[in-house]
């Protein structure tokens, strides 16, 4: 069955892995080239500013592209072409047929993208100063272990959606929409709470917050003399901001943030969370396989 699954999916698998390897190679080149320019940050900025701005978007799209093209057709195409009937009327159990197809099509790509993520974290070190905190979207999702986990997620969404709706095209559309939904919810709602953020209050002064450059700011505001949070309006201020804010009762400002050294614990937490979701999707697929298929 392994040979059969490989023979059916080999084109997608090879194209996917080729794409991932090319991207990895480009990142390794970036690392060595940027490192050779340092400590001249201006030179690095000049050469890589544009690339570093666009690359995260490409890397953010990579898992969902792989999921759409490797996951969604996995079962849906067999249903559309009728070959499902051939596969399920041989001397092999339904579950083994399903699991082998998932493993053969999914595992190589998952391993390759995870390697890409780990290499990526290392390769981006010399250009990190050009980027915002690597704990915020999209930089968090495109490196470390999360990019691999998100690839597995997109793949599982695609495969299960294809099984449920029996159409490759609809499966792809569902993959895209669901993946983006999960991405937004996890980044905006869940990620700030993996650990309680650090809290710093200081006497109010205008100007940027005094935080470490790799910190991820998740909240900030103003306090009055009693230490209560107050909302202030900048619109009616004329002249000196400090005076204007002081007139509105501002005494202190505070910020809540995650320091940069929480990157790896957060990576593992988010990867675990995403893999839990994958488990749920596979359970749904296994249910559909037994109850609904043909």
């Amino acid at each position, binding site marked *: *069955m392994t*040979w*059969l699954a490989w*023979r*059916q999916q080999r084109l997608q698998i090879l194209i996917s892995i080729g794409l991932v390897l090319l991207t990895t190679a480009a990142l390794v080149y970036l690392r060595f080239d940027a490192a050779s320019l340092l400590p001249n940050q201006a030179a690095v900025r000049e050469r890589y500013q544009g690339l570093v701005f666009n690359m995260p978007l490409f890397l953010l799209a990579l898992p969902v592209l792989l999921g759409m093209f490797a996951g969604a057709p996995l079962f849906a195409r067999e249903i559309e*072409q*009728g*070959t*499902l*009937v*051939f*596969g*399920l*009327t*041989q*001397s*092999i*159990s*339904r*579950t083994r047929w399903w699991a082998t197809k998932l493993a053969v099509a999914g595992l190589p790509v998952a391993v390759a993208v995870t390697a890409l993520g780990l290499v990526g974290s290392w390769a981006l070190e010399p250009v990190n100063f050009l980027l915002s905190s690597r704990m915020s979207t999209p930089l968090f999702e495109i490196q470390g272990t999360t990019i691999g986990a998100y690839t597995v997620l997109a793949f599982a969404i695609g495969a299960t959606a294809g099984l449920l709706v029996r159409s490759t095209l609809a499966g792809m559309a569902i993959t895209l929409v669901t993946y983006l939904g999960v991405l937004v919810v996890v980044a905006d709602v869940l990620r700030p709470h993996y650990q309680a953020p650090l809290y710093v209050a200081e006497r109010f002064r205008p100007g940027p917050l005094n935080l470490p450059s790799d910190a991820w700011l998740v909240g900030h505001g103003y306090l009055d003399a009693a230490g209560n949070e107050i909302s202030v309006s900048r619109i009616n201020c004329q002249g000196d901001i400090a005076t204007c804010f002081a007139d509105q009762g501002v005494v202190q400002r505070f910020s809540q943030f995650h320091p940069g050294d929480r990157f790896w614990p957060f990576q593992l937490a988010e990867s675990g969370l995403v893999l839990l979701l994958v488990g749920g999707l596979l359970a749904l697929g296994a249910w559909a396989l*037994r109850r609904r298929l*043909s």
Partner: protein
Amino acid sequence: MTEGSAALDAAGLGKRYRRGWGLRDCTFQLPPGRVTALIGPNGAGKSTLMRLASGLIRPTSGTIRVLGQKPGRKGTHRKLAFLAQDKPLYRSFTVQEMLRAGAELNPGWDHDYAARLVAEADVPTNARIGTLSGGQRTRVALAMALGRRPALLLLDEPLADLDPLARKEVMQTLMAEVADMGMTVVLSSHVIADLEDVCDHLLLLAGGRVRLAGDIEDLLGEHRLMIGSRDLELPPHTVVEARTTERQATVLVRTTERVDANGWEEHKPTLEELALAHLRSARKEVAA
């Protein structure tokens, strides 16, 4: 027939789809070693019955036993082979790769036998499935089914969309193998003429129900086809169906004896006449 000796045994078998019952309250046994014609109009439940037997779908009610066993989720019964109507094969595979897939999926795969069947069909083994003609494709699909060395072979409309020459070739191959292996075969078709020469057992479905089942010779012997003037009185027997044209009446009655009614001409019906009369009468019943 003793318990468990039937190749296919259905008891109160029913399958309900969202649009309604595909098969309802079917009870029958197919004896081993016979070639059964599964006849019925489109939508009669022929494919549903085969899908139930091969374990692709599960019954809503009742049971079906394949060679004594209920189909499960562990794959189709080792001794059953099912060839679906659209002859599903992997289009991008070569014939050789298709045969390898058969070996991968079936522990009891007889590679030499399957390869021989393909060679006899003059299908080049390095040709892609997608490039084969309808006849070649059917021959390869048949080889895929026979390579499992089944004791029970289910063929769903195997001759549909084949040209007359290919129909003949496929049927010849099939019957040669049946004679060699002593298989039980179920052939479905809505073209009765395709089945008349090769089948010795009948299962007639209409509207999801069994209308007639049994040995074809016995069934033909139990019916008389009466032709006479339309003014004649109907014979005093169980009338399956009576049809009249402007002058003449054709009546199928169920009886084992000669009717010998005055003025009627009496024939033994053909399989086609028998099946069509029962199907038309079933349709009238549904309409009434």
